[in-house]
């Protein structure tokens, strides 16, 4: 095993650079080190201007997503040793399809806006007082939506999705999966409100089902599955609206879903 590894890091400073460039750093190669440890080594010992986000270093805060050798990865969960056979070179770039602020830092406000649009909160026709105790929910009902509640907002799925690359208005995998997290929750009654946002060319119908979002997800959320579920429901609603136009309208007005 070599005792050094080379990182090629995309650098960009809007105050100095016209476009991104690559800079090469040689760092110690330690088997316990993840890509983030190498970046921290560079920042602490070599170049204090290197700019990136990180926080928890345990794969749960979602801050440290980057392209590592062309793949969207959490840099805290990506071991340098995985790249030892790749000529001991690791290429680190900012997440694809997001505007770059500086070096590896991207602009996320567009993503935040998309999340809010799908109404990711529990919607009830009427609020229940706390004095009535908890809503009952069996372990099986919890299991229905549990995986969709695991999203850490790391945006790796956006960097993997070719539709996001082509259509910046596409709501995108994480937001749709989060909508589905609430739709599938037995306590929620807001499916129809969310469908208004999602049954749309920039919602679920934008997805061409490449499935890259699910493949890159570090938390095994299945956004592609969520989108397919949604397409099916949306298509059935459409058929239902042809057969029973008035009935469907009433259901929309009530705002209640079948799983209440």
């Amino acid at each position, binding site marked *: 095993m070599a005792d050094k590894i080379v990182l090629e890091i995309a650098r960009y400073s809007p105050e100095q650079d016209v476009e991104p460039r690559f800079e090469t750093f040689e760092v110690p190669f330690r088997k316990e080190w993840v890509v983030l440890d190498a970046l921290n080594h560079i920042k602490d010992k070599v170049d204090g*201007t290197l*700019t990136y986000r990180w926080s928890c270093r*345990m794969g749960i805060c979602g801050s440290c997503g980057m392209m590592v050798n062309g793949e969207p990865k959490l840099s805290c*969960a990506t071991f340098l040793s995985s790249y030892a056979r790749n000529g001991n070179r690791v290429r680190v770039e900012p997440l694809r399809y997001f505007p770059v602020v500086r070096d590896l830092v991207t602009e996320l406000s567009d993503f935040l806006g998309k999340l809010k649009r799908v109404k990711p909160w529990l919607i009830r026709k009427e609020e229940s007082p706390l004095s009535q*105790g908890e809503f009952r929910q*069996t372990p099986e009902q919890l299991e229905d939506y549990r995986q969709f509640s695991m999203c850490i907002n790391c945006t790796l799925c956006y960097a993997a999705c070719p539709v996001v690359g082509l259509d910046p208005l596409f709501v995108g995998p994480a937001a749709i999966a989060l909508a589905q997290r*609430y739709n599938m929750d037995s306590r929620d009654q807001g499916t129809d409100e969310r469908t208004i946002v999602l049954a749309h060319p920039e919602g679920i119908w934008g997805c061409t089902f490449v499935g890259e979002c699910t493949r890159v997800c570090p938390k095994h959320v299945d956004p592609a599955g969520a989108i397919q579920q949604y397409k099916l429901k949306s298509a059935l609603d459409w058929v239902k609206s042809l057969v029973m136009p008035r009935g469907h309208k009433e259901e929309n007005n009530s705002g209640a879903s079948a799983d209440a």
Partner: protein
Amino acid sequence: MEADCVLPSPRQSSIPKLSIAVVSKRDYPTRSHTVSAEGDAAGAVKSDDSLEEHAYDTISGGDWLCDQDAVEVFVKEAPLELLQLEHWGCPWSREPDGHIAVRAFGGMKKRRTWFAADKTGFHMLHTLFQTSLKYDPITRYDEWFVSRLLVDEGRVQGVVAIELMSGRIQAITAKAVILCTGGCGRVFPFTTNANIKNGDGMALALRAGAPLKDMEFVQYHPTGLPFTGILITEAARAEGGYMLNKDGYRYLQDYNLGKPEPRPVLRSMELGPRDRLSQAFVKEEQKGRTSPTPYGSVVHLDLRHLGERLINTKLPFVRELCLKYQNIDPVKELIPVRPVVHYMMGGVSTDIHGATPLAGLYAAGEVACVSINGANRLGSNSLPECLVFGARAGKAAALFAAEQKEPNPVVLTQAADEQARLWSSFLRKTGGREHVAAIREEMQAAVEKSAGIYRDGRTLLDATSKLHELQERYADLSLDDRSNTFNTELEAALELGFMLDVGESIVRCALHRTESRGAHQRTDFPSRDDQKFLVHSLVYRDPDGSSRVEYSPVKITRWPPGERVYGAPQQPSEEPQAAPARRAS
């Protein structure tokens, strides 16, 4: 830019005409460190439990340094706040009949800990944040780094913050400010805490004139992975995990924590309190019964007998972390663990409404010290503490803000002063020979050596002078990065300044408390001294930069100081009860 109130609870938006700003140094509210809390949230709801028992466990766990009026409020309101989160959609784990499930936790005599698998903090924070999106009066200042509190006429009137994207340095005025910045684990070299946990709020308050309370009480969690410091939650022991020394022996039986049983026994052995378990590790190490690794010696946590099914349902994140970061599978292998700095019992001194002695300044969560945690926090009390005292601080700050006149424009000159300081000390400084990382490493080593699991007067005194030297060297800092765009080196330098102040407070309080209590163990003063030290330490920063320590009495309501007994003969615990949740009222 202006806000009436900087506060965390969306429920307060029902108060008319309140405009609320949430200022965070990170890009997205769910980056906050609560997201990492694997362990759970205590709230007495089951029919075999009572508020009194939760209070007693908390107070004895805290070695009688808790303020008992605060604990009584806490245990009463915790179940309501947990239930409120349920109504907002938190995916709590359930009993087969659909009621909330509870499990055992260290130092707790009853099963009363609510959980969302082993990602409780994650789910609480995401639920709270997603719910907050409903409320338009909340304006977020994401990636704004607060460097100073604005104070005029003895009242906090806002903050000065740097917008990281642009480098703009600006005042955000407010009629009340609530600090919710969390702990300061990064003052130590080996910690479970995220990189953002630099004691920012504690240092901001101290510099503005508010005292910090009980800063000598630092919690080591007994089960951290070596090298990364990643936490293996206490839930792993609550579900039945064993702690083994290098001979495969359940060594806790040698430390007055009860006798080993095959199944977990509440308040006994592996379910003893964290301070006692971490101290037992040091004793085992001294006896040569731990295993060496390149990252310090370890004991082992054994989950193998629990089986794959239980581990996957109750402890999925533990398995994921072990596989991803330690390359071992707890279904088949032992997990190497050692004590790791985890939680700060001390913090900005507040009353039971979250109010600090400085008008207009409130604090809640780990940054604050109410105190419900005393000399040692029990696992699963800190998440509900955030909820109970977050809500209380929000309410109190809103009422305070409603009665205040507009912030005095004079504070804007303080913002200009702060901009001048940031330019002359960092961004436009000429000269300077020191670097952030070097001072940080020396600080962490000095604090760990002196204020670790066991302490003594001489080492603490040495650390005092070392930290003084580091403060002087900090003034000679030079940054590589002078950019206005997303200057993370400036941020790291300001965080280092905060940590030096917080580290100094920890060492100073530890030096002055010449007794042993809970997480503060002095080898030169090994006994608890209720005559002299049944008091809170309060450290103040004077305008000339010097600090002083004063003491205030502990509030005792119903539970006079007694001996902490763990491992007393008890029946082995039963399987979780499917008793109905008590109706909250």
